[in-house]
């Protein structure tokens, strides 16, 4: 029985459960922040963050629930922020699109497509300069591949040989526009592989496969590494609903992906690995309680005071 496998499952479950509760509570109109749900894509941040050390640093997009929780496991700060409370990671100033916890290595989430990528490169430069061994890992969607800044940043990271792990969560769509309508090439990995970096790719929902892939990427991090991972977004681009009748993608596609849902895959592994249904359920229950508690706390917490608006425009020495 592998503790690692169990740990990975618990992380996947935490994120899924947290988002299920967002879906449940969002209609109450108390989390007033645009939700870009990770649901369906959880295995990537979980697998990759498992391969990182706690000191390594991550950067993400507005679709960062999974990355944030995979890196920090801080459901209190998470819900505090979604509810816009004093207890949130940024006292409500950031919301769902800008989740971050610099102390825990989640340095930034940004709602401008691709905009965190150069930050990761510069942060990696600082790490290299300071010889602290930290790796910078940046998560972005397939949409970021369209933006020039991705190409610039890749080039800079390669020419400077910086310890950056680029992770493309390719869910085949930027909002509702499929990659095939946006990409003037057949294979992105084929292209990127010709830069001075190592490219890894996989079409999998198995969190352990992703974990292992990330591990091998990290072994060669004397150069930048580029992970290209296919995945599927279960819910609409922004919001908590399904959108299979919107016309731009079909429920059949979802069905095929859902058959290999990352939680199901990992759960099956645990059972095969000797864990009992009860082991799993009792772990799930603990997580359910933890999250319910985080939500309770978040709702009970107070909103930031008016003077908070003006605080922190510039660095505050306290």
């Amino acid at each position, binding site marked *: 029985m592998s503790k690692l496998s169990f740990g990975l499952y618990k992380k996947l479950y935490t994120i899924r459960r947290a988002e299920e509760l967002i879906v449940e509570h*969002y209609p109450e109109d108390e989390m007033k*922040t*645009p939700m870009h749900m990770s649901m369906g894509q959880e295995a990537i941040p979980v697998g990759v963050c498992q391969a990182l050390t706690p000191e390594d640093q991550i950067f993400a997009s507005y679709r960062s629930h999974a990355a944030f929780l995979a890196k920090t496991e801080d459901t209190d700060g998470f819900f505090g922020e979604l509810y*816009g409370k004093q207890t949130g990671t940024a006292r409500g*100033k950031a919301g*769902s699109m800008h989740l971050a916890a610099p102390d825990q290595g989640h340095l930034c989430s940004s709602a401008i497509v691709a905009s965190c990528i150069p930050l990761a490169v510069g942060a990696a430069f600082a790490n290299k300069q300071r010889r602290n061994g930290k790796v910078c890992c940046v998560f972005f969607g397939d949409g970021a591949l369209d*933006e*020039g800044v991705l190409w610039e940043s890749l080039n800079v990271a390669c020419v400077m040989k910086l310890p950056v792990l680029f992770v493309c969560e390719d869910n085949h769509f930027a909002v509702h526009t499929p990659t095939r309508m946006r990409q003037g090439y057949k294979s992105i990995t084929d292209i990127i592989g010709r830069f001075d970096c190592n490219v890894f790719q996989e079409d999998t929902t198995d969190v352990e496969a992703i974990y292992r892939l990330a591990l091998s990427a990290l072994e060669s991090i004397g150069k930048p590494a580029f992970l290209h991972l296919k995945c599927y977004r279960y819910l609409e681009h922004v919001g908590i609903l399904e959108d299979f009748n919107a016309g*731009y993608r079909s429920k059949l596609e979802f069905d095929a992906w859902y058959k290999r849902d990352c939680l199901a895959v990992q759960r099956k592994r645990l059972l095969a690995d000797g864990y009992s249904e009860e082991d799993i359920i009792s772990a799930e229950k603990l997580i359910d309680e933890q999250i319910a508690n985080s939500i309770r706390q978040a709702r009970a917490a107070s909103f930031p005071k*008016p003077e908070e608006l003006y605080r922190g425009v510039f660095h505050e020495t306290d």
Partner: protein
Amino acid sequence: MRRISYCEALNEAMRQEMDRDPAVFVYGIGVPDHKKIFGSTEGLLERFGPDRCFDTPLCEETMTGFGLGAAVNGLRPIHIHIRVDFLLLAMNQLVNMVSAYVYSTGGKLKVPFVIRAIVGRGWGQGYQHSKSLHSYFAHIPGLKVVLPTTPSDAKGLLISAIRDDNPVIFIEHRWLYWAVDEVAEEPYTIPIGEGNILRSGSDITVVATSWMNVEALEAAKVLERTGVSVEIVDPRTIAPLSDGLIAESVRKTGHCIVADNDWLDCGFSAEVAARVAEKCFGQLKSPVKRIGFAPTPCPTVRCLENQFYPNAVDIIRAVEQKLGLDSIDLSNEDFYSHERRFKGPF
């Protein structure tokens, strides 16, 4: 007359111009998808086909240069951005290329290029989805900048923008999309560069941009009950800015408040204040008061966000102060808020 929404007015303007002139086309991220840019591009794909209404890869800088190239070669592009903030990725093309292209050819060439961009607000848009930036565009010679407030202005000004042979930045506040008003069915133009007295009054002038006109109207209604008559001037076009209308109003009332949907420092409110102070020198009964965003990035949580934005109450308080009135009790006042219908996510 027929009543339609601001959003429908934008849609109708584009449809009528695309009917009239086959050179007009519309493009941008998400333009033809089922959300139709909050409805404003409804029906265009079906009517004009994918050559004249199309989606693009995510690359604002390139697609702005693309529009310039297409315009120079005889087409009339309309480029749409669901948030003004994304234009920050295209500033090089806008400022270094688009704005100066006509000049660099000695005025010989035409650049009939419209950029529609939407100002986001509310439901935790946060600091990257809430900017207006109209002062950025107005600062640069060679760009025209339009911010319509009413449905009928939206239609008439968008048609003018499309027919203009120069680049026009057309800024639309998301919350105005639901505004409904009388709008003529046939195509018509409203000249770029002309302001509008949105409400006549005699005691004080409020110069407001975009959504702030709605707040100003609310304020004016409340103040009317206490006998204060507010005149509201909507410049509509801020570049070129015809300050004559503003100055005339201020000369009449002697007081001026500028309510801008933006930060104050080096913004459009400063431009208006500077011009009013100059043109109405010696005729002002009080200094020009500027109202705008708090000097912070836009926070996400509603309570701070509400504080970040200027509103009708701020205008009322400013008017009271200027006219030396007692503070009206607003506790029972029910200010109309689009936030009520603006439930997440966007």
